Structure formats: C-alpha cells, structure tokens
C-alpha cells in the first residue's frame, strides 16, 4: 500500500517542483513592469517633462523625482522645463545640492537638461548663472527643440525691455509650436494667490497676436489643465515639491482637470500637429492625459 502511494505521489511531487521552478524562472526573466504610458512614443518627437515649485529638498520632491526617473526609462524624454521656485529657502552650495542636484541626479547623469525660469523664491543672480539651469546668465531667454520654440519669461519683473524682447522674438520665430512658460499664472482656480490679472493684461495680447500655442506656469501648489483662453492652452504645474491641499475652488469654470491632493509632474510630447500630455502623481497615479491639436491661426480650439 505504501509503495503504491509513493508511486502515485512521486509524479505529483515532481510536477509541483517543476511548476514552482517554472514560475521562478518566469519571474526572473520577466522585465519589471514599466510605468503606464498613455500616449504612443513617436519618432522624431520633442519630448520633455515639466516640474514646478519643486525645490524643497524634502521627501515629496524625491518621490516625484523617482517617478520622473521611472518614466525617463520608458520615454527617454530629452529635457525638463521648470516653472520656477527651483530652490526654496537658503541658496548656499549645499541647498543647490540637496534641492536640485541630489533629487535629479539620475536624470542629470543621463544628460537630461533642465531649463529653469525664475520664481519669487529664487535668487535671480545666482540661478541665472548656475549652469545646470541653462539660463545662460539671463533672467529671460528662448531655446528651440525641433519645431518647438520655448519662451522662458521672468514674471517677477515684466518690465518694458522684456516685453519688447518677447515681441521681437515671437515675431521672428518660424517655429510651428510656440510655448511660453513663467512662474505667475495668468489664469488659475487656486484660491491662495489667484491669477495675476495685471500680468495677463500685458502678455495675452502678445500671445494672441503672435500665435503662442501653450503656456505653463506654477506658483500655485496644484496641478491644473485649464480651458483654452483666447484659443491658447494653459497648464499649471506648481506641485512638484510643494503642495497646497484642497486649494482649488470647486466648482469653478476654469479647470478641465484640477488636482490638489498630491505632488505631480508632467510628460509632454510634440510631433507634427499633435501635443500629447500625461500628468503623473508622486504615488504613480496618472491624473490626466490626452492629446491637443496645434491651433490654426484664428482658430479657437474646443475645450
């Protein structure tokens, strides 16, 4: 009886062992699950990440940076735009290390470039000349990637020379996409500061006249994708380090998507007439994604 039992059990034991080995072999060879990407990677696209109000050096900034690193592995975005408040608090060497160089070390080591604009917590003279911020010693500047030209403004001090410079650069640009970014939002549903209506009065006529397609800003510590204003797409990413919980007025008639319960960063891709975007929280949750079409002159896009 015992012999019959052994004969019957042996194949079962062998089967179990093989199955376990198979599982382990499979788990060793399978790649770790990548981050979820909601747009297809397109050849020749301009691809970047957006952060804002990030420079705290605290754990949440590191968490967002860690998510960015995961997504870089999946997308190889070329550069990062920074919506200001790049370094909070002190501005000693150690602050630049703790609040910028350490959190984004993996990306910097891969050669990812960061293009900063100045927020009200930044030290203009130091940050303009801090090489990794790529401002070239200027408080406002422009750079171009493929068919996309970026206009990086200093909204702390929008004086007549800067407005004249902006008009000149917009007028002479032949880029298919014109994107402006700066710290203070022209439109927002956040309650803490609210929009800068005086700045809006100066900038919107230029943006409309010279066909700016999309605008990013920060300052409010939330994420917002707003209804197009005068046909221009508006985003706000001001929570890549700081966060102001439940600060968005709800309901409001400005936001298409508003998020104020975690930190975020954005991924953006432009290819041809299409702009794909995805906003990712520090937790890894995807809080917004979609595609926008390049506006034709005089066309007001549907919300």
């Amino acid at each position, binding site marked *: 009886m015992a012999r019959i039992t052994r004969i019957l059990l042996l194949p079962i034991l062998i089967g179990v062992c093989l199955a376990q080995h198979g599982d382990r072999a499979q788990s060793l060879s399978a790649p770790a699950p990548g981050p979820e990407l909601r747009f297809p990677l397109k050849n020749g696209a301009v691809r970047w990440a957006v952060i804002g109000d990030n420079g705290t050096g605290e754990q949440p900034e590191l968490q967002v940076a860690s998510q960015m690193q995961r997504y870089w592995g999946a997308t190889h975005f070329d550069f990062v735009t920074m919506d200001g408040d790049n370094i909070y608090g002190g501005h*000693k060497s150690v602050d630049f290390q703790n609040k910028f160089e350490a959190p984004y070390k993996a990306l910097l080591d891969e050669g990812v470039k960061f293009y900063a604009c100045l927020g*009200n*917590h*930044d030290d203009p*003279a*130091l940050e303009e*000349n801090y090489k990794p911020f790529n401002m070239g010693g200027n408080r406002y500047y422009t750079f171009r990637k493929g068919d996309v030209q970026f206009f990086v403004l200093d909204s702390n001090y929008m004086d007549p020379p800067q407005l004249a410079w902006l008009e000149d650069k917009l007028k002479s640009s032949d880029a298919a996409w014109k994107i402006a970014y700066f710290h203070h939002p022209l439109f927002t549903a956040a309650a803490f*500061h609210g929009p*800068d209506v005086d*700045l809006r009065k100066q900038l919107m006529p230029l943006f409309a006249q010279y066909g700016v397609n999309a605008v990013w800003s920060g300052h409010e510590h939330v994420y917002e994708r707003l209804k197009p204003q005068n046909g221009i797409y508006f985003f706000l990413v001001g929570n890549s380090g700081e966060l102001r919980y439940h600060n968005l007025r709800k309901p409001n008639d400005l936001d298409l998507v508003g998020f104020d319960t975690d930190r975020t960063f954005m991924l953006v891709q432009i290819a041809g007439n299409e702009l794909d975007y995805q906003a990712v929280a520090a937790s890894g949750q995807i809080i917004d994604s979609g595609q926008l079409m390049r506006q034709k002159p005089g066309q007001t896009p549907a919300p």
Partner: protein
Amino acid sequence: MAESRTSNRISMLCIGMCLALAAHSAANGYAQPPSPQDKKALADFSREVKQYSSMEHNLPADKLKTTTDVAELERERQVLRQAIAQARPDAKQGDLFTPDVAAAFRRLLGQTMSGPDGAKIRASLAHAEPNPGQGLAVNGIFPNTGGRPLQSVPATLLKNLPVLPKGLDYRITGRTLALRDADANIVVDYLPDALP
C-alpha cells in the same frame, strides 16, 4: 442768440479736449501727464542711474559668470558688493531719489495706482506674496535672503516708471520702492512711502 451758440460750441470743444486728454492719460495708466517739473526730475533720475551703471561697469570686479560652482558665484557677488561699497562709500538715502525726484515718483505712483489700472495693480501686488516693509540700507543687501521671497513688481507699474539700465531694478517692500543692483543684490537707493 448767436453769442449763446458760440458759447455752447466753445464749451463742447473744451469738453471734447478734456475727454481726449483723459483718454490719452488713461491709455498710459496715469491720471495726468507729468508736469514739466516732474519730467525734468525724472530725466535727472535717469541720468543719475546711467552714471551709476557706468561706474559699476568700470569696477575692478567681474560680473557673475556662468558656472556649476555656487560657492564661486557667491564669492564673485561678495567681491562685487565690496567694490561697489568702496566706489561710493558716502552713498546715502536720497542721493538718487532727491527731493524733486521723490516728489515726482510719489505723484507718478499715486496717479498710476488711482488710475484705470489701479485695481489690477493692487491685485497683482497682493498676489505677489507682499512682505511687510523691511529696513533697507544703502549699499546693504536687499532683504530677500534666508528664504524670504522677492516680491514681484506689477508690469503696469513698471510701464509707468523710468526705464532702468540693465542690471538695475525696482523692488517693493511694504510701501517702499527700492532701486536694486540686481547682480550684487544690494540697495542703491530707496524711497520710503512711495506707494500710496
């Protein structure tokens, strides 16, 4: 009867001219154009800031140069501050904001902020993390250090003030308007009670 019609026409003409003048002033964001005395004071101010700028350019201290070394940037800034302080050791409040210039600035700012854009300017000031008035000293470091934000200056206000040479800017703390050397981050001069 004819006399009355002529009088009416003159009245209408006067009203029309006043409306045209008011519209022009409103378009520029101030209630009245500066008086000849204020124009002269503002021109004097512009000349003085240009002289300051030329002096700074000729100092034996380099402007900050782009680098990855923040300590080096701090060192260069400190050298620049010392050179400026040595070049104008007797500088004091009111050297550039002389009594005539101060009066012209106060009038200009008062008119701008009580003009058609006044509400937007006030909203912008309130939106820009205003700081309470902090003690300023000529040749002293502008008090935006230690994590205190640098208050932004409303664009419409800047549009109505004399344009400054590169490297100088206007800054606001409380009701005080400061003239700041941006590279050195020091106070060149300041005007108390500038904002109404």
